[in-house]
């Protein structure tokens, strides 16, 4: 819902953020802020630093340089990209919601019901399916009236109706509580409808703005639109752009200095995945091995 953008106080922001793993610079020159009540989605190919950016904004990943600022006492609901649960740890979904702050049974039941997993409250976490675990994680994130929801590929493992319902739920939660949402998503065809602002990331911010602006940005097309049938075809049916082979080499200057071999390979790989998804049409469910 454009129009909400830019209103409200800043909850979290980064300035000139850079993150390096060993010698490799994963993120550089990132300036980004999230204000109350806005839904910001980060898109980008595999290895573009999406999860690292989220983790840096949460303070999990130390910044190599630059500044990370969070509003004092910010209440965050976080859904990590993955949660590996050791079989030796007995833990029901209900008990999990009470970590680290204990919540009442009523509160827990309401959150689980809202996420469509009220029936699994007494099941062990290790016995849940991927989609169920994802919903339980989201239920936990909703507890405690978060001001900011940070969601790392929140719909992985969800089926198609589940995915649609999930984005509706995010919109409802934002409307009710005014919580801001910062998420990484691979569901390009819904990102555009569900976000106020889209950040196109590939080690640095290639372009950002409302979905309409980003969709038309050459940098975005360079990342997602190259190959014979770019993923752009999914949501641009007016064919006003060139699908020709030349597009693969059309990069904005800001995107151009990022063609080290592994990164390029990652991009290529991502492009193939998206192309495959594009061919599959609406069958793309976001369950592929997308781990940035």
């Amino acid at each position, binding site marked *: 819902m454009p129009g909400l953008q830019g209103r409200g106080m800043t909850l979290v922001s980064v300035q000139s953020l850079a993150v390096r793993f060993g010698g490799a610079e994963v993120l550089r020159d990132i300036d980004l802020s999230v204000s109350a009540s806005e839904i910001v989605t980060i898109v980008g190919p595999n290895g573009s630093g999406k999860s690292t950016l989220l983790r840096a904004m949460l303070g999990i990943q130390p910044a190599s340089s630059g500044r990370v600022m969070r509003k004092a006492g910010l209440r965050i609901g976080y859904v990590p990209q993955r949660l590996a649960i050791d079989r030796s740890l007995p833990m029901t979904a209900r008990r999990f919601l009470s*970590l*680290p702050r204990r919540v009442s049974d009523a509160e827990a039941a309401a959150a689980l019901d809202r996420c469509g997993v009220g029936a699994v409250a007494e099941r062990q976490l290790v016995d849940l399916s991927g989609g169920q675990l994802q919903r339980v994680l989201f239920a936990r994130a909703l507890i405690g009236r978060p001001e900011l929801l940070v969601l790392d590929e929140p719909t992985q493992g969800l089926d198609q109706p589940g995915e649609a319902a999930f984005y509706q739920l995010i919109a409802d939660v934002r409307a009710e509580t005014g919580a801001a949402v910062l998420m990484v998503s691979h569901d390009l065809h819904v990102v555009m409808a569900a976000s106020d602002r889209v950040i196109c990331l590939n080690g640095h911010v290639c372009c950002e703005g409302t979905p309409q602006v980003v969709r038309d940005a050459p940098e975005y097309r360079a990342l997602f639109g190259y190959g014979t049938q770019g993923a752009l075809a999914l949501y641009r049916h007016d064919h006003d752009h060139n699908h020709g082979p030349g597009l693969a080499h059309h990069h904005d200057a800001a995107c151009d200095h990022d063609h080290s071999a592994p990164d390029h390979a990652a991009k290529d790989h991502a492009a193939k995945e998206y192309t495959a998804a594009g061919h599959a049409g609406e069958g793309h469910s976001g369950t592929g091995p997308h781990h940035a």
Partner: protein
Amino acid sequence: MLDDFLTRAALAGLGLSLATGPLGAMVVWRRMAYFGDATSHAAILGVALALATNLPVGAGTLLVALAMAATVSTLSARGWAMDTTLGVLAHSALAFGLVAVSFLPGMRTDLSALLFGDILAVSRADLGWIWGGSLLVAGLLIWRWQSLLTATLSTDLAHAAGVNPDRERLVLTLALAVVVAVAIKIVGALLIAAMLIIPAATARGLARSPETMAALAVLAGAGAVLGGLWASLRFDTPAGPSIVTVAALCFIASVLAGRLRQA
């Protein structure tokens, strides 16, 4: 009542179980079994150093165990390959400790007490040390329980919830060093890790929540202590190994019970 050596032994073992139950559960969940080995083996070196420098044995054990636990904890945080690192540290600590002990006159005869414990020789002062240490550890774990569990489940979730996983790891490191210093008298350096892990593993099959697992581990540990002491008297076997033997039998029984229930 405390005049009876058997009563003192039983009380010492029960006190230890209070700490090893919840701590052992944490050790199992976080896959720190080898960590317990390294720390407890280092305790032998602590005993030798304390005797050589006329420090109280308890203090020496605690210090060296703490140093080892802190070393392992730091290395693991820096991403060292833990399997190899711990294998090196645990066994080196044991070897260094045994060599150091051999330099002390009159200590050779007490070596088996160091390695396997001497629960039947627990004094009133020992009893105070054991209960004090165990209650301290149990209290520490209860106080930090929610944060410890969150950090155990996922360091990322802990961070996002304002829990510092490094601080929680430090809490566990401290608790482990105290338990080692306390338990060396009871089961000896070689079998401390067994007292941590076996009762917790026994409890795992029967528990559906972290709290019941910790509580059942306390019960399993206490049962093993009482059963082991009884067996030691009845069959004239060494007390420390008898306690661990009974703990192991309980574990096997719990696995079989679990199988039967599933069938």
